[in-house]
């Protein structure tokens, strides 16, 4: 035992004997989370084994074993939503990450008064999600949207139905999401660039390294940890991204922008099939726990 812990735990002997299991200050948080998170999770797992209609409630629920789960295998919408989730999440993380990286590298050496420019680049982060969706619904509008107007001016004559054609909708929604999330990566990368040791940069400068090789060979290797952490945080967040997609397309046209989240929501609150919705939710919880485990391990490895 080191001296400092001995001091903190005074009086030493008594403190040790009375060392409690829990601290009352943590209890309000635990109680609230037990009510709004732990209970719903346990309920969701239980309900996933029932034919449970949200409107009929407990009385109309019938135990049906793993039927909800076996239904998944042959449900084409489930597989399409899984595919859409992967495309949306992957596209957003990769796109946002690249954009954030480029902006971080470009603004790295901004000095003095010019530094506020980086602050301006954070603006999309402060814009409410509902506003982002309205904004891009307007930008992508087939008839009066600015994007088609610009394309027409450049000479691409046909107006593209960005949000109403199944082949474009998912890409358009992802683009809007990238716009709103790039600032997160800008921040993460800016912080990481700040931690590159100056001696390394100095040494490279003496070796007359070009800007390009400085970035590729030196700085990027210091950014790997931040990139990993940022990507994992945003992967989890985009897996759970409901408001943007719902308010831009409601999952349509057809099922082209239906992610797992949208599908679960529709099942629970449009068709009221809470049992089946919960089964998908549970599958997905397992997927997320796996990701979360990866996240924790990455952080541990990063700090070691």
């Amino acid at each position, binding site marked *: 035992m080191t001296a400092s812990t001995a001091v903190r*735990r005074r009086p030493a002997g008594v403190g040790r004997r009375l*060392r*409690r*299991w*829990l*601290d009352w*200050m943590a209890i309000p*948080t635990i109680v*609230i*989370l037990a*009510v*709004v*998170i732990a209970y*719903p999770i346990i*309920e*969701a797992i239980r309900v996933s084994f029932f034919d449970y209609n*949200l409107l009929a*409630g407990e009385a109309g629920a019938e135990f049906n074993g793993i039927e909800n789960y076996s239904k998944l295998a042959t449900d084409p919408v489930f597989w399409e939503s899984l595919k859409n989730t992967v495309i949306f999440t992957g596209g957003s993380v990769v796109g946002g990450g690249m954009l954030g990286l*480029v*902006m971080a*590298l*470009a*603004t790295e050496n*901004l000095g003095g008064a010019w530094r506020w*420019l980086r*602050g*301006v*680049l954070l*603006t999309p982060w*402060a*814009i409410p*999600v*509902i*506003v982002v969706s*309205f*904004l891009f619904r*307007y930008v992508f*509008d087939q008839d*009066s949207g600015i994007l088609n*107007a610009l394309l027409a001016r450049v000479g691409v004559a046909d107006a593209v139905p960005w949000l109403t054609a199944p082949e474009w909708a998912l890409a358009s929604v992802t683009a809007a999401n990238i716009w709103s999330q790039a600032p997160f990566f800008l*921040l993460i990368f800016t912080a990481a660039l700040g931690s590159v040791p100056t001696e390394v940069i100095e040494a490279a400068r003496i070796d007359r390294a070009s800007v390009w090789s400085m970035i590729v060979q030196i700085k990027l290797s210091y950014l790997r940890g931040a990139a990993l*952490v940022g990507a994992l*945080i945003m992967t989890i967040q985009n897996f*759970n991204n*409901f408001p943007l997609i719902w*308010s831009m397309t409601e999952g349509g046209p057809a099922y082209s922008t239906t992610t797992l989240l949208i599908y*679960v*929501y529709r099942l*629970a609150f449009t068709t009221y099939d809470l049992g089946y919705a*919960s089964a998908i*939710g549970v599958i*997905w*919880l397992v997927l*997320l726990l796996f*990701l*979360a485990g990866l*996240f*924790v391990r990455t*952080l*541990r490895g990063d700090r070691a």
Partner: protein
Amino acid sequence: MKTANRLLRRTPAGVIIAIALVITLAPVYWMLSTSFKSPQEATAQNPTLWPHEFGLANYEKLFGGTLPFSNFLVNSIVTSLIAAVASVAIATLAGYSFSRGRYRLRGAVSVLVLATQMLPLVVLIGPLYLLLLKLHLLNTFLGLILGYTSFTLPFAAWMMKGFIDAIPTEIEEAAKVDGYSRFGILVRVVVPMTIPGLVSTMVFVFMNAWNNLLYPLTLMSTNTKLTLPPGLLQSFTGQFKTDWGGMMAAACITSIPLIIAFFAVQRSMVRGMTAGALAGT
């Protein structure tokens, strides 16, 4: 030669920054400019960069028309503010406990709390709906605020832990010698020292609540009790579908509180968020 070299080094960065600024600000400018346009101009095939007929009609319609916009606005402000204050009060206790507590389950509890941050809200909303139904809290602000805490409290607790970790313990030791209780130390010594962190955490919770669509959409059924996201969504996908001017005016007003709050505490909020995320284990 030297300056030329430096200029050459700087130019690509300058060009990239310029492009990034345009990508960032063009949609925002477009929103602002459209909100002052007449309906005809807003839906014109050939968009104008600057409103030809500058007018406040869109804004007047929001507050004087059939849309219960001021209800949405007030509901959003009230519920988000209460959620922010309540969450931060509880999160400060938890954060202090995670930071300074010496008890066996400390590590397990704090990681468990952080893990809840990653759960999909949509999976929780069905059972939560039924629970609030049983408690007769459906379609009440109390129920909604309780729902908000499910996704704001965990991270807020971690942010507060991060800010409290940064405070040296010596002052608390001194206060302890002076006979303060643990709670007294927290309220009189720690909280005053972490005001910037407290405010940023509050802004973080406020932003999250302000942005949330799922909970009010499912938990509130009376139209006038909706907050901005579901309220605007229902209004502007229904009868006012292509009222772009009105939509952009509503978007501007919805953005203002968040933009002000965000830039007021931007620096320390980012520090707190990255501390919470990076020190996560």
